[in-house]
């Protein structure tokens, strides 16, 4: 070894490694590591790459169903949607980079998740984004919203993948640590899926895409280190995205994938060349010998350390079948991309790095991966919140005013300002656009559709991580169901604070437990996901946010419904039952100024029964519009349906002993609001299914009424609902 820099305790600490972890490295290596080797260990053993705090818990998530082709463990998960088609999807966080440089942070987040999907052979057909910002009053929020939205649009629009759905909410807990979670959904033939396990001693290892620069070195460790005020000094670690090159890379990779040339392929994500080569070698149980002089470089005099740790974007690593190099090279050259054979597969089981004729790194791959630390960190359950009875929550002075407040509050206000900056129609298969419960994208050239959504209610998760975890999964399932689609599987993005604090670890453990219960009961397995920890600033943690991305299948898009009210004179029915649960409701927060009580409990058996019934009623064409009940409750859902259909309604239901405001704003789970033309037939079907339904009003007019009394006109409601975000963003 010529890399003579000696490893001091300071260097070890700067690499985010503990003394024990360094001892382990010494025992794996049997000698002092070179600086390049130390860098490789540090990124491979970072929270981001090793999942050292979360692994023990993630194992508890159900990951199997007859339609699951590939669960967690590859670049993305894969499900079977029939007819030889497969859907590949995953969600990933880009929280810290987006806080530091919102445009590029968000843009490269989109770029990264796209690569996870097309690296497996899927043509990306939809993007989603789940966003959490700090309080609108916080001085940084506006700038962050503006940059993040522009960045997501800037990347997705340019590569030509429609951004069709997402969420965007605000809470002071995200003031110093926003969340940017991006999801990509891709489509492939079931027999043309590509995996990352390298094989074939002697096979060439090929680098394609952009050149390597000194971008984001230490990015992976940064993404795992808690924020401090001075972390803005770490700024230059942010990378710049190049969506044009990504578009070329997508086309070139898919073109090569149509040939019989690729043994294994892996994108270079966090920790670039290091994690891609180590993962490919480890999965295949082989060694890699890389000649770093052959790595296409953008900068002069790059060191092996820099090349191995660079996070330059838009790059991929492949193992080719012997003799396919020329064919592959021709395709990448045609698309004006770099192509270089940088090494070969060996039978040594080691990652061997050569630079200028010397060996600068030589690490046994198996222990580098298997000996990565794994912690069962101490955890504490969140104490249950004291119960809150509907009677303890005051009625509003006026129902109409409460509705105004809710429909114009940051969390419920229309997000049109966001999605109109996203090309949500490119590829010409978006059959349900943003604004409903789930977006629906047609499977190109067929009549099938994919229903896509992201969901999570962090305030529920904070109050009760187990119920909150259940609810996030249930809401995703419900949103898909509300279009008429059958929910198939989810991806997740687990955004939490510092796992070294037992209360945070308890939130994580609780959310996993709740999610696992819901996934099992709803047959809605987890097929991919991502963990983002240390989302704290100066000891203030974010709300626990297990964001769920759900995918469902519509056999025939002709059977799809939207939330828009359709016909005056139709009936409105509520499916499910209301107990008037106001704990942690938006009514409580926005109208009463309180954030307390337990979240609404989720009864998974009822959830499933009600959802299965709604789906069958949609398939039987008994339901012409449908919206699940979530944030804001029944009246808010009804108002959203009215706006979407430009038709008013009268809610004339009688709730018995339940206070009106509890019935109208309660956030009980497992409920839907549906528009029905033939009331009797619908009621008979519900009776047969054993599902409680209640006729609560009828459609018509241009006002929203409660028992014949006008609450608000459609025009005024629209103004309130549509104006908050543009006013906030544009009247700085």
């Amino acid at each position, binding site marked *: 070894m010529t890399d003579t820099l000696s490893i001091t305790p300071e260097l070890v600490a700067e690499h985010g490694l503990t003394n024990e972890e360094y001892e382990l490295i010494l025992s794996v290596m049997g000698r002092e590591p070179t600086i390049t080797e130390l860098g490789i260990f540090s990124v491979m053993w970072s929270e981001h790459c090793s999942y050292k705090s979360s692994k023990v818990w993630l194992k508890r998530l159900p990951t199997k169903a007859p339609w699951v082709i590939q669960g967690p463990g590859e670049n993305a998960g894969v499900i079977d949607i029939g007819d030889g088609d497969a859907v590949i999807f995953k969600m990933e966080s880009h929280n810290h980079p987006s806080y530091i440089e919102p*445009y590029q942070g968000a843009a490269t987040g989109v770029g990264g998740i796209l690569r996870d999907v097309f690296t497996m052979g899927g043509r990306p057909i939809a993007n989603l984004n789940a966003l959490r910002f700090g309080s609108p009053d916080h001085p940084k929020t506006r700038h962050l919203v503006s940059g993040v939205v522009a960045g997501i649009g800037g990347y997705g629009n340019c590569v030509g993948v429609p951004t069709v759905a997402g969420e965007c909410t605000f809470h002071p807990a995200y003031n110093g640590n926003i969340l940017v979670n991006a999801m990509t959904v891709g489509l492939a033939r079931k027999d043309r899926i590509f995996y990352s396990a390298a094989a074939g001693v002697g096979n060439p290892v090929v680098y394609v895409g952009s050149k390597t*620069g*000194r971008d984001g070195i230490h990015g992976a460790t940064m993404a795992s280190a808690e924020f401090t005020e001075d972390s803005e000094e770490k*700024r*230059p670690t*942010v990378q*710049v995205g*190049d969506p*044009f090159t990504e578009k070329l890379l997508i086309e070139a990779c898919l073109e090569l994938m149509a040939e019989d040339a690729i043994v294994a392929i892996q994108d270079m994500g966090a920790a670039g060349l290091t994690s891609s080569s180590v993962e490919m070698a480890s999965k295949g149980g082989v060694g890699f010998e890389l000649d770093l002089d052959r790595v296409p470089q953008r900068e002069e005099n790059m060191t092996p350390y820099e090349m191995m740790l660079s996070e330059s974007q838009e790059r991929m690593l492949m193992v080719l079948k012997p003799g396919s190099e020329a064919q592959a090279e021709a395709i990448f050259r045609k698309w004006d991309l770099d192509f270089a054979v940088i090494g070969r597969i060996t039978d040594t089981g080691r990652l061997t790095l050569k630079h200028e004729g010397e060996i600068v790194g030589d690490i046994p791959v198996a222990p580098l991966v298997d000996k990565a630390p794994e912690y069962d960190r101490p955890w504490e359950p969140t104490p249950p919140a004291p119960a809150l009875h509907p009677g303890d929550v005051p009625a509003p002075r006026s129902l109409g005013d409460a509705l105004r407040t809710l429909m114009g509050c940051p969390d419920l206000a229309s997000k049109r300002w966001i999605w109109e900056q996203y090309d949500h129609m490119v590829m010409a298969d978006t059959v349900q656009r943003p604004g409903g419960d789930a977006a629906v994208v047609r499977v190109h050239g067929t009549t099938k559709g994919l229903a896509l959504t992201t969901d999570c209610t962090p305030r529920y998760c904070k109050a009760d991580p187990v119920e909150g975890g259940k609810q996030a999964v249930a809401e995703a399932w419900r949103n898909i169901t509300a279009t008429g689609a059958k929910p198939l599987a989810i991806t997740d993005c687990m955004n939490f604070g510092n796992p070294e604090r037992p209360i945070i670890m308890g939130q994580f453990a609780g959310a996993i437990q709740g999610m696992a219960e819901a996934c099992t009961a709803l047959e809605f397995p987890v097929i991919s996901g991502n963990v983002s920890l240390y989302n704290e600033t100066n000891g203030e943690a974010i709300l626990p946010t297990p964001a769920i991305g759900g995918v469902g299948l519509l056999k025939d898009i002709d059977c799809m419904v939207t939330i828009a009210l359709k016909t005056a004179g139709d009936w409105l029915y509520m499916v499910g039952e209301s107990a008037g649960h106001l704990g942690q409701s938006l009514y409580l927060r926005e109208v009463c100024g309180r954030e307390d009580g337990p979240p609404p409990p989720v009864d998974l058996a009822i959830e499933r029964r009600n959802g299965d019934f709604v789906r069958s009623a949609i398939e039987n064409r008994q339901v012409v519009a449908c919206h699940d009940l979530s944030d804001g409750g029944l009246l808010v859902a009804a108002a959203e349906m009215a706006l979407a259909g430009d038709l008013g309604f009268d809610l004339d239901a009688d709730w018995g002993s339940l206070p009106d405001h509890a019935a109208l704003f309660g956030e009980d789970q497992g409920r839907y609001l549906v528009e029905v033309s033939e009331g009797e037939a619908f009621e008979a079907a519900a009776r047969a299914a054993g599902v409680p339904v209640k006729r609560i009003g009828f459609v018509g007019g241009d006002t929203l009424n409660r028992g014949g009394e006008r609450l608000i006109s459609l025009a005024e409601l629209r103004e309130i609902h549509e104006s908050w975000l543009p006013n906030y963003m544009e009247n700085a």
Partner: protein
Amino acid sequence: MKAHVHVTLKTGVLDPQGKAIQHALAALGFDGVEDVRQGKFIELKLAETDAEKARASLDEMCRKLLANTVIENYTIDLVEE
């Protein structure tokens, strides 16, 4: 008073635009273009007449809005009219 502000990417930061321009120039037959970097050029007209004050205020504008100091550098020139 008039001012010229140049905002350029820091060395080492990827410049997709510059790279694409270089490539396009080569395709058009311009040989020997070894590197291209694209930046912004902003001309401002200020009411301020005191050069020192103008410069201080421009510096603040650059840090707060005109440049993204995470990835960009800036220079300020005051121009006599």
